[in-house]
C-alpha cells in the first residue's frame, strides 16, 4: 500500500509539472489579452526539438534550452498574426496546433523509438539529501527531475513577475484595457508580443519535460491533449499563477490515476468493501472516464464565471480575445 501511495504521489508531481508549466505560460499570455489555443502545438515543438538536441549533444540541459527557444519562436507566428495582423485569436491558435502536430509528426519520424540522454530524477541540491530521506514524503516529493522542480519554482516567480515588475504590470494593463494603457504611453503591441512569447517559452519547456523527464522518449502527438488541459486549467484557476499550482496538482492527480490505475487494480485495493461501493468507485476511477473530469469541471467553472461576470471581476482579462488598433 505505501509503495502504491508513494508511486501515485510521485507520478502526480511528475504529471503536474507539464500542466503547470504550460498553464503558467498561458496565464501570462492571456493576462496580456491573447489566448493561445495553439499551445498543444507549441508543446509538441518543444518536446521534439528538446529531445532531438538532447540526442545530438547528449545534454538534456541543451535540449531544454532549445525547447524554450523553439517554443518562443513558434509562438511568434501566433503573436504576429494576432497582434500585428489583428487576426482572430481562436483561428490562429487552432492553426498553430495543426501546424505543430503536422511538423512534429513529419520531422519526428526518425526519432520515434530512439533513446537519448534524458533528465534523471534526484534529490534537489543543497538540503535535498535530507528531505529525500523522509519516509514516504521524501521519495514522493523530493526525488524528481530538474524540470519538475523548475515548474513548481516558477509559479511564485510568475506571480512576482506579473505583480511586482513593470513589464508584468504593463502586460496585465494591455490585457485589461489596451486603450488606457496606450494613452499612458505603454506600447500595446510590444507588451502583447512579450506575453505571447513568454507563454511560448513556458509551453516549450513543458514539452521538454514530457519528452526528457516524464516519458523519456519521443512519440508522435505525445502531448496528448495536455495543451488543451492547460487552457482549461487557466480558466479553472481564474488566471492566477498561485492557484495554478493547486489546479494543476488536481488535474495532475487525475493523470497520475490514469497512469497508475492501469498497472494497479485500484478497486482491488478496496477489497472487502460493499460491492456497490466497489462498483461505483471502479466507475469513478475508471482510467478512460477520469480524463473527462478536467474538461467537465472547466465548463462548469466557465459557466459560473459567466453568470457572475457582471457582479464581480473574477480575474478574466477584460480585453481577452480582442485585438487592438489605435484609433487616430
Amino acid at each position, binding site marked *: 500500500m505505501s509503495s502504491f501511495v508513494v508511486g501515485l504521489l510521485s507520478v502526480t508531481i511528475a504529471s503536474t509539472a507539464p500542466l503547470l508549466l504550460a498553464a503558467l505560460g498561458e496565464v501570462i499570455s492571456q493576462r496580456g489579452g491573447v489566448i493561445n489555443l495553439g499551445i498543444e502545438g507549441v508543446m509538441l515543438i518543444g518536446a521534439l526539438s528538446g529531445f532531438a538536441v538532447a540526442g545530438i549533444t547528449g545534454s538534456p540541459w541543451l535540449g531544454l534550452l532549445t525547447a524554450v527557444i523553439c517554443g518562443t519562436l513558434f509562438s511568434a507566428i501566433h503573436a504576429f498574426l494576432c497582434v500585428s495582423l489583428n487576426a482572430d485569436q481562436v483561428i490562429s491558435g*487552432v492553426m498553430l496546433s*495543426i501546424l505543430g502536430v*503536422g511538423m512534429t*509528426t513529419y520531422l519526428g519520424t526518425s526519432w520515434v523509438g530512439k533513446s537519448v540522454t534524458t533528465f534523471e530524477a534526484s534529490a534537489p541540491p543543497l538540503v535535498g539529501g535530507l528531505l529525500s530521506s523522509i519516509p514516504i514524503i521524501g521519495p514522493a516529493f523530493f526525488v524528481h527531475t530538474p524540470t519538475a522542480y523548475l515548474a513548481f519554482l516558477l509559479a511564485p516567480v510568475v506571480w512576482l513577475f506579473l505583480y511586482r515588475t513593470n513589464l508584468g504590470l504593463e502586460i496585465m494593463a494591455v490585457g485589461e484595457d489596451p486603450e488606457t494603457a496606450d494613452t499612458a504611453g505603454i506600447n500595446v503591441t510590444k507588451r502583447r508580443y512579450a506575453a505571447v512569447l513568454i507563454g511560448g517559452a513556458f509551453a516549450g519547456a513543458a514539452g521538454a519535460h514530457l519528452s526528457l523527464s516524464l516519458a523519456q522518449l519521443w512519440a508522435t502527438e505525445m502531448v496528448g491533449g495536455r495543451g488543451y488541459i492547460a487552457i482549461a486549467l487557466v480558466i479553472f484557476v481564474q488566471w492566477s499563477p498561485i492557484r495554478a499550482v493547486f489546479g494543476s496538482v488536481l488535474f495532475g492527480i487525475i493523470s497520475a490515476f490514469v497512469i497508475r490505475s492501469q498497472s494497479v487494480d485500484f478497486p482491488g485495493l478496496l477489497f472487502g468493501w460493499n460491492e456497490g461501493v466497489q462498483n461505483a468507485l471502479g466507475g469513478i476511477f475508471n482510467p478512460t472516464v477520469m*480524463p473527462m473530469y478536467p*474538461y467537465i469541471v472547466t465548463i462548469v467553472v466557465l459557466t459560473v464565471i459567466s453568470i457572475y461576470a457582471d457582479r464581480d471581476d473574477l480575474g478574466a482579462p477584460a480585453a481577452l480575445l480582442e485585438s487592438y488598433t489605435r484609433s487616430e
Partner: protein
Amino acid sequence: MNPIEITPRTETPDWLAWSSPILTIVAALVAGAAFLLLLGHNPLWVYQIMFVQPFTSVSGITNIILETVPLLIISLAVYFPLKAGLWNIGGDGQFYLGAIAATWIGLSWDVPGPVLILSMMSAGMFAGAMWGLIPGYLRAKWGVNEIIVTLLMTLIGIQLNQYMIQGPLQGTGGYPASDTLSAEATLQTFGATRLHLGVVIALLLLAGMYVLIKRMTFGFQVSFVGANPDAAQQSGIDTKKVIVYTMVLGGVLAGLAGMIQLAADAGRLQAGLSPDYGFTAVAIALLGMKGPLRVFLASLFFGLLTAGAVSVASTTPVDVSIINIIQALVILFILTTSFVKANKVVINKEVL
C-alpha cells in the same frame, strides 16, 4: 517614414475579394513547397502526385469524393453557426457522439435494414444535437464563450469514444474497438462502385443549406444576427433562439457525419474515426464564408488534398502528415489575406 505603411481600406477592391480564396491556397502551396524543398523533396513532383494523379483513375476520383463527404457535412456544421457569428470548433465531438449513438443502435437493434439505417441516422443526429445544444444554451443563456465550450466538449467526446470502445461497446476481439456492424447496418453502395448513400446525403444537405440561407426567413435571421446582433435584437429577432438553433443544427449535421463515416467507411467504432475533421472544417468554413457553394468547393479541395496525401505517402518518402502542414498554412494565409483585404499595405522601397 516607415518601411511598411499600413492604412485601413474603406472598401475591399472587387478583384481582391473574389480572388482571395485562390490566392490563399496558392500562397499555402508555395510555402508548403518551400518546406518540402528544405527537406530535400522536389515539390513539383510531390504536388503532381498529390493534385494530378488522383484525377487519372476512377479509383482516385472515387477517393476524392469519399474524402469530401464527411468534410462537407462537418463544414456545414461549422459554417451555419458561423453565419450567426458563432464558432463551432467542436465538430469532432459532435461527430463522435453521432458515431457512438449509431454504433449502439446498429449493434443492438434487430430490425429490417432500412429501418435500422434510419434509426442509426436519427440516433446520430440526436446525439450530435445534444452536444451542440450544451454550448448553444450556455452561450444564449449566460453568454458563456462557445469557442471554449465546443473545444472542451470535443475533448470530452473523444474521451467518451475511448471509454465506449474499451467499455460498454467493446467488441469480442479484445481490441479497443466495437464489433463490426452487420451488412444491414452498413450504408448501401451504388453498383460496383465504392460510392455510398452518404454522397447523396451530403449533396442534399448542401442544397438544403443553400435554400435555408438564401431563401428562408430563418436563414436571413441567422445572417442578420451574425452581421449585427444588436440591430437584429432590436428588429424583433429572438437572438437567443437563433443561437441555440444554429448550434443544435450544427450538432445534428456533425452527428450525421459521424454516423455516415461509421456506417459507410469504418464499419465499427474505433479510435481516430475522425482525423481532426472538426479542425479542417474550421479552415473550410473560413474559405467558404461567402456561401454554401464555396463551402462545397473548399471541401472538395481538402478532399483532394487528403486523397492526394494518401497517394503521396504510399509512393514517395513524404509522410501523410504533410496534409496537416498544408492545412495549417491555408489557415495562416486566410488570416493574412483578410488583413490585406482590410488594410492597404505599401512597402516603401526607398527606405529599405
